[in-house]
């Protein structure tokens, strides 16, 4: 497995399969934060300690396979160009923090890109697992198995009373962040989501934009995740999230039906305008792209648009990000050049589908 593959394909192999409820839930993610016992956390560790960790992870796991997670590739941040790091961020394989702040950071990525293990981020180890659609329980099971496999070689920092010890007090205990990426255009359009968020927060869950903390909900894509990691078992946390997501799916479906019932023409108009913009524009910004892609996706889900497959939209969503465009162009691009390339890429891709 080479780095090149991670760079070339906008869609990670695991995204090519449709998961349950994939009209609304795009992906489910489990993240576990872990640290080595006896080595200070990355913010205070000496460089030699962090280098030792890199060396250790590389020697134990580079090119290893665990279950279906084949041929783990070990990549250090220092060997990557800024654009390459950006591409990995846009594919959610690494965090912006690892790309920008962790000089001695690295990542292990499986061939399917379903597992990525960030090394020397805020914690020594952050295991991430992705599943298509709504599959939280399965993702948790697999994450546990993967965690056990790593633990065969690593002495984790663990305390009987506080659980898995992490650098930030917000992660201590289970070190678990379970999250679900959802496309909620009808709830956003009808302003219903804003009214639901306070209730969701009360359950110890948060709703935010696609790139995590503080980011905007581009293209009506929201991430719902747990906040509490101490005193609540992983299974219970995932159950809570699961039931809230089920409710959101139900509400989103209701809102879509209501829109179709009450203002079908307006909805159809909106969807086809966006489709038109994507098909014909010559310059397009990423924000407008995200909005139009969201509309077209909704158009497919409710049956107005029949000749495009959903996976193309997922692909375009990643492909039209600034990092990917530059990777595609094989050169740095100014924002104006990006907007031009973005428009032509989208046209090409949609034509391919129609042809």
């Amino acid at each position, binding site marked *: 497995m080479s780095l090149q593959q991670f760079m070339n394909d906008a869609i990670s192999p695991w995204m090519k399969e449709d998961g349950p409820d994939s009209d609304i839930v795009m992906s489910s993610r489990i993240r576990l934060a872990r640290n080595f016992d006896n080595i*200070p956390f990355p913010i205070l560790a000496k460089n030699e300690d962090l280098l030792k960790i890199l060396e250790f992870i590389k020697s134990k796991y580079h090119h290893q396979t665990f279950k279906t997670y084949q041929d783990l590739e070990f990549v250090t941040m220092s060997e990557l160009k800024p654009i390459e790091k950006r591409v990995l961020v846009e594919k959610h394989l690494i965090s912006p923090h690892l790309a920008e702040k962790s000089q001695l950071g690295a990542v292990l990525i499986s061939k399917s890109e379903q597992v990525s293990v960030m090394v020397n981020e805020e914690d020594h180890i952050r295991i991430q697992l992705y599943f298509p659609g709504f599959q939280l329980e399965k993702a948790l099971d697999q994450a546990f198995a993967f965690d056990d496999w790593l633990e065969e070689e690593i002495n984790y920092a663990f305390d009987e009373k506080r659980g898995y010890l992490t650098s930030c007090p917000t992660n201590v205990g*289970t070190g678990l962040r379970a999250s679900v990426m959802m496309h909620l255009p009808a709830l956003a359009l009808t302003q219903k989501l804003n009214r639901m968020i306070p209730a969701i927060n009360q359950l110890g869950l948060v709703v935010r934009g696609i790139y995590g903390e503080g980011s905007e909900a581009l293209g009506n894509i929201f991430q719902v995740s747990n906040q509490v990691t101490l005193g609540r078992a992983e299974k219970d946390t995932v159950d809570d999230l699961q039931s809230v997501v089920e409710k959101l799916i139900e509400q989103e479906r209701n809102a879509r039906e209501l829109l179709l019932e009450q203002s079908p023409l307006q909805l159809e108009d909106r969807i086809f305008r966006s489709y038109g913009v994507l098909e014909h524009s010559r310059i397009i910004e990423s924000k407008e792209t995200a909005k139009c892609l969201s509309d077209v996706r909704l158009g497919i889900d409710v049956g107005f648009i029949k000749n495009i497959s959903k996976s193309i939209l997922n692909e375009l969503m990643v492909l039209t990000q600034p990092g990917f465009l530059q990777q595609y162009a094989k050169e740095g691009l100014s924002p104006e050049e990006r907007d031009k390339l973005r428009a032509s890429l989208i046209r090409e891709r949609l034509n391919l589908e129609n042809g």
Partner: protein
Amino acid sequence: MDCQECHERTATLHFTKVVNGNKTEIHVCEHCAKEKGYVSYDEEAYSLHDLLSGLFNFSSPSVKQNSFVHTQGKTCEKCGMSYSDFTRIGKFGCAECYHTFEDHLNPIFRRVHSGNTTHHGKIPKRIGVDINLKKTLTGYKEKLQQLIEGEEFEEAAKVRDKIKSLEKDLSRNGGDD
């Protein structure tokens, strides 16, 4: 000993002030210490507040009073993180910090984790063998109690045997409890 300022409350803080070689002893209660500016714990409370205000939404007055005592200047021996650094950065420096700053952590964790302070959930398989045994043991003991109360003595005897063998395992592993 009464507080030398208000003569009402008991003096709980005792200082020795040395100015130009002249020693003065000061005995005051917490209230007066705060009022007369003998201690600067407000500083600590504020820096804690600064850090946690956004993240943890901190405003509990009880924390102010409890964290008043001497841990203010504690520094983690393992990584060199001081308590004031911890409150400023909002991150632990190493696993040992959890022990070093133990006295301050419960209120913080309660805030962040919906009132919880104790881990519930996964335990590492290999290094957590003893912890896992202990957990199972506690479970069995509770079950034994229920069985005895329900007068199911036959079942109870079986559970008792399980407990005995587990306890043997634990002592073999060097578990001290």
